[in-house]
């Protein structure tokens, strides 16, 4: 039956300006615009992806929220009612894409950064060197040296390290969830900027062979595309236990998206659903996890750091401690606002905890147990701006990962329809005519611009803090102050309230 749900958006076409070139019709991948003597909108299909409005040569298109309002109700909000209506029509789980958009507190926006005044001079990053470089991997308890003062060398054997020129890494997004052109753009940008991209759980397409030293390869519960060659063709290997957008549940790439190329990369037949189980079927304890970590280390000859990625959940600190003791060189924590190509809305919006609190708790726990040096901490789950990166590092992270921000840089308009495979911007789709819309070269340029811009901003902040290296800021919670937070939250974050001095 035809849906009785009102349209969410209205597409207004200014017919006086429209010269009937029909570019909007071909640009719309959601069938929201038709041509019947003149351009006509099918409002119900519109997802506000902006593709038509962006490419209209006459600027004749505007998209507005449907002013048809639901009767007021703080409790039975329009969104809640819309979802009930949808489910009453379909009987299905509501699927969605991108990160949790609900108005939970954003703690980044309740933390403020310190700056130097008078007695401790600030530094001008345009005149003096300012280091953003950092290294991922286990650090030794202490360093021993050999030789004499003129010919000194390091005696301690270091665990494998991966150098990052900027403490921002591209988040795990699989080839399947996003297009090959998007993957190429991320890989090229990672190489140019001296950082890393992450294959996600979809394996590594052969076109990315030239970028392997800048690629994190992921081993997830579906084990798609995992071979010893795959593990060795990498900067580091990540075991994915959980994802911030959908902690505790698996993944599902529908068969329609599994074409020839994806089938080869994932090593599954064409047209079959790629199902990632909720758990790894060989991991039911920290000891099991340790076995997988060491199996990977054996396979990679102890030359690659091994990371374990988990979603931020209630017991995250104890889990992270177990992961470090199991032998992981990196712990990646993904907060409850982390993005996804497809997840049930109920999970995305209601499961997990904020990354700010999880990070503070994990860093604290590892310090208390004296094992913080044994692993680097990577955090993600809605890092939206350079200030978030600075605050995360001051809270104890080694580096941040960005997913949604990198997609937005490539053109994503956060319409949250990634799961439909109709992405009008050629990012979250496998349809050849849509994938073509994303030029990998242009995408890479835009990603590099974003990282360069954030890098400059981070340098400005470091200068104002009077320090000249990002590593000097790590875990320096004294340089943060909270505003409008309860005492308990301040205690968890390990920061003082604004207004309190040393």
């Amino acid at each position, binding site marked *: 039956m035809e849906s009785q749900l009102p349209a969410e958006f209205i597409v207004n076409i200014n017919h006086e300006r429209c010269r009937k070139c*029909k*570019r909007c019709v*071909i640009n719309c991948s959601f069938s929201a615009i038709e041509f019947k003597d003149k351009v006509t909108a099918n409002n119900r299909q519109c997802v506000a992806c902006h593709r038509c409005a962006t490419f209209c040569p006459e600027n004749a298109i505007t998209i507005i929220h449907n002013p048809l309002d639901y009767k007021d109700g703080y409790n039975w909000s329009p969104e809640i009612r819309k979802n009930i209506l949808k489910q009453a029509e379909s009987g299905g789980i509501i699927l969605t894409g991108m990160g949790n958009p609900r108005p939970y507190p954003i703690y980044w926006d309740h933390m403020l950064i310190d700056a130097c005044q008078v007695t401790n001079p600030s530094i001008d990053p345009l005149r003096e060197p300012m280091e953003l470089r950092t290294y991922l991997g286990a650090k030794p308890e202490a360093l021993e040296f050999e030789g004499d003062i003129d010919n000194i060398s390091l005696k301690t054997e270091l665990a494998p390290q991966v150098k990052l020129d900027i403490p921002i890494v591209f988040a795990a997004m699989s080839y399947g969830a996003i297009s090959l052109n998007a993957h190429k753009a991320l890989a090229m940008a990672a190489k140019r900027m001296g950082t890393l991209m992450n294959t996600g759980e979809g394996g590594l397409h052969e076109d990315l062979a030239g970028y392997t030293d800048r690629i994190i390869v992921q081993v997830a519960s579906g084990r798609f595309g995992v071979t010893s060659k795959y593990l060795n063709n990498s900067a580091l290997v990540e075991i994915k236990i959980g994802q911030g957008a959908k902690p505790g549940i698996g993944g599902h790439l529908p068969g329609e998206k599994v074409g020839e190329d994806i089938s080869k990369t994932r090593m599954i037949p064409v047209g079959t659903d790629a199902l990632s189980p909720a758990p790894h079927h060989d991991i039911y304890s920290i000891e099991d996890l340790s076995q997988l970590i060491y199996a990977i280390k054996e396979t990679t000859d102890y030359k690659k750091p091994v990371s374990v990625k988990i979603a931020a959940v209630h017991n995250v600190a104890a889990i992270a401690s177990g992961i470090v003791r199991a032998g992981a060189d990196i712990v990646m924590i993904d907060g409850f606002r982390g993005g996804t190509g497809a997840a049930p809305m109920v999970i995305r919006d209601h499961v997990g905890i904020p990354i700010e609190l999880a990070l503070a708790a994990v860093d604290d726990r590892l310090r208390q147990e004296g094992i913080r040096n044994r692993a680097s901490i990577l955090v993600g789950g809605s890092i939206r701006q350079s200030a978030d990166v600075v605050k995360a590092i001051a809270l104890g992270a080694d580096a941040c990962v960005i997913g949604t921000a990198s997609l937005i840089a490539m053109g994503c308009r956060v319409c949250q329809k990634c799961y439909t495979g109709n992405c009008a911007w050629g990012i979250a789709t496998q349809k050849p*005519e849509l994938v073509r819309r994303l030029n990998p070269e242009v995408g890479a340029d835009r990603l590099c611009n974003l990282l360069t811009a954030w890098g400059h901003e981070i340098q400005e902040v470091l200068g104002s803090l009077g320090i000249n290296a990002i590593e000097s800021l790590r875990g320096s919670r004294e340089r943060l102050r909270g505003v409008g937070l309860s005492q308990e939250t301040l205690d968890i974050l390990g920061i003082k309230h604004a207004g309190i001095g040393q």
Partner: protein
Amino acid sequence: MQEYTLFLGCIIPARFPFMEKSTRLVLSQLGCILHDLEGATCCPTKSIVKPIGDLAWYVTAARNLALAQKTGHNLLVPCNGCYSTLKSVEVEMRVNPGIRDEVNAILASAGLEYTGTVEVKHLVEVLHDEIGLPKIKQHLIKSFDGMRIAPHYGCHMLRPSSSITFDDPNKPKKFDALIEALGAKSIDYETKMLCCGGNLNTADEPEEATALARIKLMEVTKKADAIALTCPSCFMQYDSRQYMMQKTGEKLNVPVLFYPELLGLAMGLSAQELGMDMHRIDLAEFLSKWDSKYKYLKTLKEVFDLSAIRKCYECAACVNDCPVVKVNPDFNPNEIIGRLLSGELEAVTGSHNIWQCVDCYTCYELCPQKMGMNKIFDKLKHMAIEKGMGPKGFAASIEMFRKDGRLGEPTSMRKKLKLAEPPKSGGEELKKLLDHINNKGEENEI
């Protein structure tokens, strides 16, 4: 494995047994087991039997339902009229206990009872919702790609929506989806939801019945290659009545296809096997058009990305930006692409027009899909050269390129300008490389 009890009604076995044939053939290929309904009677037809009396209508239908209940399988109904009647009574018996008890009290005297444990399903409902489009697509052998089919739902597949809810009564989609699953284009047309007028015959108004059928046929003949339907009464209107019109000199030539026939053809069954030679309106022209279209598109697909060219043809946004169009209004790149799709590959390759594309990439830069017509022209030009065609000046240049690897020799002008001798040509080495490609004997196009 799906099992159904087949309810054919009166018209299909009596007048159009080929409909039964195709239904049985395609459903068995799709893995369905069909059981017959012993003792079945007329559904009964609402327009004729209901006026006799409500209860007679209910009891006749409920008796058929009670018999079906004994078989234990849901009823599969390929006739719209039977479906609408049986479904209406099934739902009425479920939601209205008063009628159920009254009807069952009468059925009891024949030792029958309908308790609502079997459901009535339309053929389209079963194919779309239960067998599913992916399974149908798996059985495709010869697609109807490039053919335009006008879907005729027929009123009683969808109405009354008080009982029938598997598709929208005014804007249905599922029959269209079944047609498109076979590769055909299911066209949207103004009279799509217009009644066939069949019941006007029972009202002794054959002329009005013809007039109503004619309206749709007039539109379809202009817009589609055939009409597809699932109802024997509608079929009678469009096939038999069109034949009568033909006899009086009005030739509309609209082939009328029962959906299982269309599906059977796509599955590789022959028109003879399906009994399609029993139609009154001749299908030969339709079948041969389909066959040549199929063969042509197969060749075209080897060279071009068909879905991309189709989008390109429909869009045509860049045509007004093409610089050549500005000096030569007769050059219409979009029309060339249209001809390519309609079967004129050879004529297009031989035409001088394709050389008027000047490789300026204007269309590519303005293309929302980053496709651009220039890519199509690149391929056409290559095909022309392969066949030894192309502008004269062009052939001479190619000759020179093949010989020296350059398109011009230095002249005395250089000396006047006191320029040194140009670097030596690598023509010899290039020639070897190009010979290497030729010797491999492979297609030169990537």
